[in-house]
């Protein structure tokens, strides 16, 4: 029973991580990454490491997406500014 739970959590994390790598667009990557963060937190809980799970949750649920999306926005704005100047 515990083995099944471990297996489900591990498979989900492996799938989400592969999907995050396979995405091309950074914004879509950030979406998959935030799902991966929550799944990793569940995996750590299943493996009886709630401290690590909390760290992962705190960083992965909101902070990492915010940092990535702010960078994406800055780069898009720069591109738009250059196009406008031309």
């Amino acid at each position, binding site marked *: 029973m515990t083995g099944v739970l471990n297996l489900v959590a591990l498979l989900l994390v492996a799938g989400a991580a592969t999907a995050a790598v396979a995405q091309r667009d950074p914004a879509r990557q950030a979406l998959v990454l935030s799902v991966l963060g929550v799944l990793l937190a569940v995996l750590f809980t299943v493996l009886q490491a709630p401290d690590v799970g909390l760290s992962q949750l705190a960083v992965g649920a909101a902070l990492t997406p*915010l940092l990535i999306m702010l960078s994406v926005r800055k780069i898009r704005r720069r591109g738009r500014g250059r196009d406008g100047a031309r």
Partner: protein
Amino acid sequence: MSRRLRLWLLAVGGAGLAALLAAACLDLPGFGGRAHPYGTRAVRASLARHTANTVASVNFDQRAYDTLGEMSILFAAVLGCVVLLRQARDEHRERPRPAEVARPVRRYALLVVPVALVCGLYVIAHGQLSPGGGFQGGVVAATALHLLYLGADYRALERVRPLGTFETVDALSVCAYLVLGLAGVLAATAFLANTLLPYGTFDTLSSGGTVPLLNAAVGIEVASAVVVLLANFLDQAVEIEEGNGG
């Protein structure tokens, strides 16, 4: 030293490392077994010092020196970001336009900001009792503040976020960690040794000697570091434009 000799040296060193690692792996206790040599010792040490959460005891007592290193890594990383993302000479600031966010979203943000702050402080304060600690709680408390940007606009966030204060507090809390470690030296034991304070009653807020204090220092450091980091990212994404403006 010729290229050939260097390669040989590398090969010999690599082979030695591989042999040592393989020998160590052969001596490891079996996976998923009942014997946990390190775990048993860590739990015994943390119980002897009345710290309910063994992970907190490892982080802030048995390996407090490692945590000092991690703390300085975060500090240096944020410092690097501040330097890299500063306003360059060929850039200018533009006031962000005020945003009209849907009313339920704004109300939700205003309601959750204090709730998330209190939850973050709870996670920091109970680091030595339940899962959590300075890092986790600090990140939550810092994220709480940025709900004001998400639920309203950047100017609202800027009004409740005195950036200079956060930068000062960031440096001061790193200093506080160091001073707590040096206090151990002055009390005639060792750097960061947990012999300074009474261990207190097991499973209460004051248990664990210096663990709660170091934990709080890390919590404040992480919270202000994240605020400073996000402030620089937000400045770049929202305010700073290319060109000298006019």
